[in-house]
């Protein structure tokens, strides 16, 4: 059973998408510009792209690089951020380094990395890794720093060693914050993925998009924008579901299920 408020909440994103497409359609018809196809034209081009084997392989290759870059970044950044949050020495060591890397657009490092590592998967995954790492490190750091000291003391009194406390108290306690960082990181992974493929055109979703642009196939360009956008929305939605499940214990409750007797 879904309440009427629930139905409104569920359908809101769909309505927003339809509204956006409608505005697009009207604007495109009004402007009558070759480089601005209508929403319907763009949507019509989507099956052509997804039906094309080569395009599909390209998109999957993009996703694979993104998964590798994101996955490795998360695996490295969470422990590093947690350690920095709990140890002043570790924080003092890595802080200057991160402060230097932080404001640099990661894609701007691509030419150098390409020079060293070529234009292949490693380079692109590495750029994605760099893009994802910082927000995840930052949020893990903040999360670890905020862990209540008495909680760690309680653990110590139960006999947990410092390493056990990091894994079994700091990590779960900081998890909501860590996952907030990962969510930002996921979107950044997508952005860096496309950017890296724009710089090192060879394969991938970004490659299809920019090649189409060069060739003036504007409906393909806009179709790719829709596809990439949908990928972002889809990944974020999946991640959000996982996140909500993992940190149910920390979310404020809207409808208290306190109906016990």
């Amino acid at each position, binding site marked *: 059973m879904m309440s009427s408020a629930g139905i409104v909440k569920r359908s809101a994103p769909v309505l927003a998408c339809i509204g956006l497409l409608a505005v697009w359609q009207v604007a495109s018809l009004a402007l009558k510009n070759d480089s601005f196809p209508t929403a319907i034209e763009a949507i019509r081009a989507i099956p052509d792209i997804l039906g094309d084997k080569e395009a599909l392989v390209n998109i999957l290759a993009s996703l694979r690089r993104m998964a590798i870059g994101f996955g490795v970044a998360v695996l490295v950044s969470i422990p590093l951020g947690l350690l920095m949050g709990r140890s002043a020495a570790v924080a003092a060591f890595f802080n200057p380094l991160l402060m230097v890397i932080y404001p640099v657009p990661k894609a701007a490092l691509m030419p150098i990395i390409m020079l060293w590592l070529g234009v292949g998967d490693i380079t692109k995954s590495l750029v994605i890794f760099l893009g994802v790492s910082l927000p995840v490190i930052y949020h893990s750091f903040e999360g670890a720093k905020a862990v*209540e000291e008495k909680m760690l*003391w309680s653990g110590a009194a*139960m006999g947990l060693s410092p390493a056990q406390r990091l894994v079994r108290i700091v990590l779960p306690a900081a998890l909501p914050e860590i996952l907030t960082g990962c969510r930002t990181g996921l979107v950044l992974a997508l952005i860096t993925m496309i950017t890296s493929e724009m710089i090192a055109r060879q394969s991938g979703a970004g490659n299809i998009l920019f090649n189409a642009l060069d060739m003036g196939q504007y409906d393909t360009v806009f179709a790719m924008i829709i596809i990439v956008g949908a990928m972002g929305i889809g990944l974020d939605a999946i991640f959000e579901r996982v996140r909500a499940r993992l940190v149910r*214990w920390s979310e404020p409750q809207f409808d208290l299920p306190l109906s016990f007797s």
Partner: protein
Amino acid sequence: MKVVPSRSSEWVKPVTRQEPAPAIIEIDHVSQVFQTSARRAHVALSDISLTIEERAFVSILGPSGCGKSTLLYIVGGFVSPTSGAAKMKGNAITGPGPDRGPVFQEFALFPWKTVLGNVMYGPRQQGVRATDAEAQSRTLIEMVGLKGYENFYPKELSGGMKQRVALARTLAYHPEVLLMDEPFGALDAYTRTRLQNDLLNIWERDRKTVLFVTHSVDEAVFLSDKVVMMSKSPGRIRQVIDIDLPRPRRRSELLLDPRYQKYVVDIERMFDESDEAGSLA
């Protein structure tokens, strides 16, 4: 009223004296200085010596900021004193351990664990089998009056319920000494009274050593065998008072007992005599 110095002379009248319980915790000339800035140092505790006997219920009573929590943290091994030493059963305390179980005023429950998960945490850590740990924990949860709440998360509990979980979580790993820091300080009068009664029942059942920090004179007298009165700036022990009231104690009887009333009035008067009047809740 017997007013004894912190170190009573052991040699007087050994014939009529009851065999004194062995000391479990010895605090020996402990001082704690906090360096608040480059130039300023704050003496939180000054030359504290105190012996706590096995299975005694000892309250530490004093105005805010006199170093009660700091003293408790030192016994817990969470903080090491600037000078002096604390000992547990003759061994120097160098860190926390499961023989001393803290119950913090802030509860410090693990929010990602349910009530049952919190209470089971200690026994599991000690290597108790999951099924045994769960059975013991369920019994404890029932004992602190939270049956039916086993699968609730801390955020779904009231302050008083959290306090009960915190107590059960610490009792679950059977520490020899309970270190309780104003555990009932943040509760309303009604819940406070109920938890005092519960704690007393639990304690009278399996007499652990308890070191109990409080602001409340009534609470200290009601619960304790011994009340340690502290004064502020720097934190010192003013006096240690034995509370000679029969056990088991019943609140309804005790409140009418002139001996209880005299203890309360006398202790309040002693605090009033100093400039610390009013700073005690």
